[in-house]
C-alpha cells in the first residue's frame, strides 16, 4: 500500500521586500512528509529555514508554489499542525499545568485533567505542575512549551531550532527525550536545525538546504539503526554521515556567513567540486593525504551547482573546479579565460536518455516532451539530436533539475529525459521507461578539471603538484579498487555497495590520459565536437578550437 503524504511543499518560493530590496528566502522548495516520519531540514544559519517552517505551518503564504496538508492546500494555521518556534517560551502568567492545558479549552474538565497528567508524565514535570515558568530552569521551560504543543495532539509537529539555546548536555537530553516521546506517541516530527549532529541523531530523512535563497540541495535517507542512543553519536556510521553532510554544508555556511574563501587559509589551493562519484578521486587524494605528501595544501569545497562553481572560479574564491567540456565552453564564451588541466573520469553509462516504453527509437522523440537539466544533460540531448539529424525545434525541451526530471517521468508529465545516477536507476524502477541511449554507447561527457589562465600562470608550481597527486590518486583507484571505493564512499554519504553501483557507468581515467593532456587526441576531438554542437544550438556565439582551451 502506498503511504499517504501528510504534509507536502510544492516549489515553495518566498520573496520579501526589505528596504526596497527583494530578498529571496526560499526557492523552489519541494518536500514531502509521511506519517510517523521524523524529518530534518538542515542548513546554515540564515538560509530561510524559519521562513520555510512558517509556510509549512500555514503562517505564511508562499510567494510561489503551495503547501498542502492531507492533500488540501493550507491557507492558515491548522491545530492539527503543531509548531514550536525558535525562541519558544511557556506563557509566563500560567502555571506548568495551566500552560499545558491552554490549548485544551474545548475539552471537558475531566478530559483536560487527563491530558495534562499524561503529558506532565511524558516530559517528567509532574512534581512541578503548580510552579510558574520563572521558577524553572531553561531546559524545564522548554519542556513545558513542548508539552503544551504535544497536549494539543497535533498530527505533525514542526520544530524550529528547538534546542539551540540550550547547553550541549541539556540539548542531548532533550534530543533523547524527543526520541522517546516519538516512540510513545508516534507523532510525525519535522525539525529545522543548523546542527548536523542533531539532524542525524533525530531523523529518518534529512533535507540539506543551501544558503539564501534556501533551496533543497540534497535528500538523505538516514538508515542508522533505531532506537538511537546518545552513544551512537560516536559510532563510525554516524561520523561518516556527519562528514558527508559537513562537505555539503561547508560552502553554504561560508556563503551565509559572508566569509570570503580567499581569507581562509590563503595559501591553500582551493578546489571547487560537486560531490559525485566521478570526482571522488580528488576527495580520495585528500583522504589518503596524497596532496600533503606532495607538499601541497589544498582545501576542497563542495559547490553543487555548475553556476556556483563557475562564479567561484571567476571571483577567485577557488582556483580550480571540476566540470564538463560543455560548461567550460559556455564559460569561455561568457569571457572567462579558462584552461583545461586534467580529466578525472568518463561517463560510460551513468548518464542516459530515459524514455517512455512506447518510444521505440531515437526518431520517435520528435514532438515529444523531453526534460533536461541545464548543463551536460542538455548537451547530451543535443548530441543525440545532432547525431540522428533531428532538428532541435522538433523536440519539446523542458528545463528542470535532475530530481524533477525523475519524478516527471514517473508521473508521466514528460515523455523522457536525460538523467543520471542515482535517479536513473530509481526512475527506471518506478516507471514504464527504458534507457534509449546512454553514455555507454556515446561517451561524450568526460569529467574535466579547469582553472583560469591567470591562476595557471600564478600558481604553476602548485598546480603541477596537484596534477601529480591527482594522478597518484587515480592510479591508486586502479590498483586498489576495493580499498579506494570504501574510502571514497564516506564523504559522499553512501555505502561502498551504492558507490559500486554508481560507478558502474563511470570509468576513472589515469596517468595515461592525464600525462599529456594537450595532445590527447580524444579530448581534442571531444572539444571540437562539443563546440560545434553548442554553436549550432546557439548556446555559444563562436566555435572554439581545442588549442584555445588546453
Amino acid at each position: 500500500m502506498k503511504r499517504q503524504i501528510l504534509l507536502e511543499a510544492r516549489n515553495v518560493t518566498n520573496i520579501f521586500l526589505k528596504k526596497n530590496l527583494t530578498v529571496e528566502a526560499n526557492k523552489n522548495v519541494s518536500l514531502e512528509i509521511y506519517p510517523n516520519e521524523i524529518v530534518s531540514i538542515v542548513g546554515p544559519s540564515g538560509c530561510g529555514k524559519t521562513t520555510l517552517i512558517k509556510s509549512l505551518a500555514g503562517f505564511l503564504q508562499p510567494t510561489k508554489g503551495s503547501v498542502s496538508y492531507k492533500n488540501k492546500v493550507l491557507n492558515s494555521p491548522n491545530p492539527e499542525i503543531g509548531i514550536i518556534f525558535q525562541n519558544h517560551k511557556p506563557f509566563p502568567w500560567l502555571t506548568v499545568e495551566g500552560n499545558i492545558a491552554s490549548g485544551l479549552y474545548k475539552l471537558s474538565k475531566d478530559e483536560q485533567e487527563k491530558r495534562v497528567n499524561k503529558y506532565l508524565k511524558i516530559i517528567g514535570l509532574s512534581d512541578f505542575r503548580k510552579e510558574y515558568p520563572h521558577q524553572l530552569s531553561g531546559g524545564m521551560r522548554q519542556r513545558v512549551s513542548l508539552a503544551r504543543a504535544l497536549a494539543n495532539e497535533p498530527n505533525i509537529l514542526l520544530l524550529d531550532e528547538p534546542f539551540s539555546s540550550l547547553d550541549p548536555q541539556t540539548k542531548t537530553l532533550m534530543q533523547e527525550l524527543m526520541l522517546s516521546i516519538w516512540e510513545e506517541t508516534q507523532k510525525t516530527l519535522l525539525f529545522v536545525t543548523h546542527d548536523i549532529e542533531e539532524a542525524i541523531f533525530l531523523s529518518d530523512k534529512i533535507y540539506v538546504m543551501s544558503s539564501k535563497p534556501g533551496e533543497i540541495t540534497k535528500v538523505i535517507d538516514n538508515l542508522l539503526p533505531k532506537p538511537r542512543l546518545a552513544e551512537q553519536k560516536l559510532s563510525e556510521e554516524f561520523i561518516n554521515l556527519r562528514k558527508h553532510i559537513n562537505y555539503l554544508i561547508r560552502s553554504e555556511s561560508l556563503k551565509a556567513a559572508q566569509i570570503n574563501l580567499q581569507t581562509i587559509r590563503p595559501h591553500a589551493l582551493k578546489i571547487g567540486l560537486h560531490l559525485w562519484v566521478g570526482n571522488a578521486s580528488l576527495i580520495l587524494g585528500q583522504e589518503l593525504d596524497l596532496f600533503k605528501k606532495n607538499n601541497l595544501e589544498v582545501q576542497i569545497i563542495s559547490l553543487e551547482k555548475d553556476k556556483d562553481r563557475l562564479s567561484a572560479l571567476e571571483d577567485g574564491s577557488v582556483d580550480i573546479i571540476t566540470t564538463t567540456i560543455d560548461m567550460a565552453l559556455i564559460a569561455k564564451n561568457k569571457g572567462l579565460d579558462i584552461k583545461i588541466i586534467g580529466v578525472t573520469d568518463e561517463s560510460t553509462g551513468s548518464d542516459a536518455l530515459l524514455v517512455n516504453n512506447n518510444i521505440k527509437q531515437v526518431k520517435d522523440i520528435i514532438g515529444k516532451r523531453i526534460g533536461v537539466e541545464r548543463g551536460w544533460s542538455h548537451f547530451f540531448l543535443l548530441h543525440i539530436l545532432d547525431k540522428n539529424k533531428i532538428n532541435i525545434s522538433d523536440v519539446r525541451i523542458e528545463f528542470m533539475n535532475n530530481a524533477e526530471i525523475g519524478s516527471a517521468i514517473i508521473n508521466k508529465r514528460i515523455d523522457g529525459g536525460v538523467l543520471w545516477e542515482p535517479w536513473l536507476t530509481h526512475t527506471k524502477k518506478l516507471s514504464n521507461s527504458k534507457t534509449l541511449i546512454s553514455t555507454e554507447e556515446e561517451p561524450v561527457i568526460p569529467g574535466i578539471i579547469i582553472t583560469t589562465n591567470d591562476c595557471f600562470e600564478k600558481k604553476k608550481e602548485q598546480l603541477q603538484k596537484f596534477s601529480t597527486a591527482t594522478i597518484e590518486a587515480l592510479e591508486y583507484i586502479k590498483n586498489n579498487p576495493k580499498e579506494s571505493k570504501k574510502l571514497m564512499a564516506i564523504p559522499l554519504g553512501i555505502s561502498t555497495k551504492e558507490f559500486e553501483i554508481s560507478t558502474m557507468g563511470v570509468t576513472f581515467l589515469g596517468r595515461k590520459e592525464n600525462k599529456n593532456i594537450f595532445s590527447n587526441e580524444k579530448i581534442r576531438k571531444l572539444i571540437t565536437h562539443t563546440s560545434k554542437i553548442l554553436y549550432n544550438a546557439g548556446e555559444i556565439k563562436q566555435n572554439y578550437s581545442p588549442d584555445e582551451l588546453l
Partner: protein
Amino acid sequence: MTKYFDVKKPLPKLGVVILSFLGILIFIILWNLIAKFGNVKTIFLPTPTETVYAIINLFQYHGFLGEILLSLYRILLGFMASLVLAFPLGLLLGSFDFFKNLMEPLVNFIRYIPPVAFIPLTILWFGIGDLQKGIVIFISVFPYLLVLFIDVVARVPQEHIDTAKALGFSRTRTLLYVVLPYSLPGYLDATRAMFGTAWTFIIVAEMIAASQGVGFLIIQSQRFIKTENIFAVIIIIGLIGLFSDLLFKWIYSKLFFWSDKAK
C-alpha cells in the same frame, strides 16, 4: 571601604536603609543651616521645625485631611474615566493596526497640546467644581495613558501570539487569554507613572481656579504669606507620591510575581 564602590555592585540591605535615611538627613541639616544662618528671612524660608509645626497645625485646625481627600477624589474622577477608556482602547489599538492608524494621529495631536491650555476652556464649559477638575485630569492623563497602553500591548511577543494561533485560539481568545494577561504588568506600570502626573495637574488646576483642595491651599498660603504652610503642603504631596508609588509596586509584586520585572 573600596568594596562599597564596585561598579554596579549592589550593597547589603542594612547599608541601603542607612544610606536612604542619611540622604534625607543631610538634606534636612542643610536646609536648617541655610534657614538659620543663611541670612534669609523666615517668610521666604521657614526652618524644618517650623514646617513640622505647620503640618501639625494644618491637620489640626484647617481640615488638611479633607482638602487632600478632596483633591484625591478629583484625581480619581478623571483618572478612573481615563483608565476605563484607555484599557480596552489600548488593547484594541495595540493589537490591530487598523484601529491604531485610525486613531493614533488624533491622539498624538491632542497629546502635544499642553493640558493646561485646556483649563480656561473647561472653566467656561463646566465651571470650577469637581467635574471641571475631573475633566482637566482626564485631558491630561488619558492621551498619555492610551499611548503607553498601546505601546505595552504592541510589545507582546509575536511568538506568544503565533503559539496561540497554532493552538487554535480564536481572535477574541487570543486577545483575552494571551495579549491581555501579558500586558497587565505593563498596564500597571503605566498607571503608576501617570498617577504622579495626575497629582501635578490637579495642583495646577486647583491653583488656577478653585475654592477648595490642596492647590487652593497653596495659593491661599501664598496670598497670606504663610510660607511654612506652602512648605508643609509640598512635603505632604511628596510623601503621598512616595507612598502611592510604594503601594503600586507592592500590588505589582503580588499580582505579577511571574513577570521578569518582578524579580
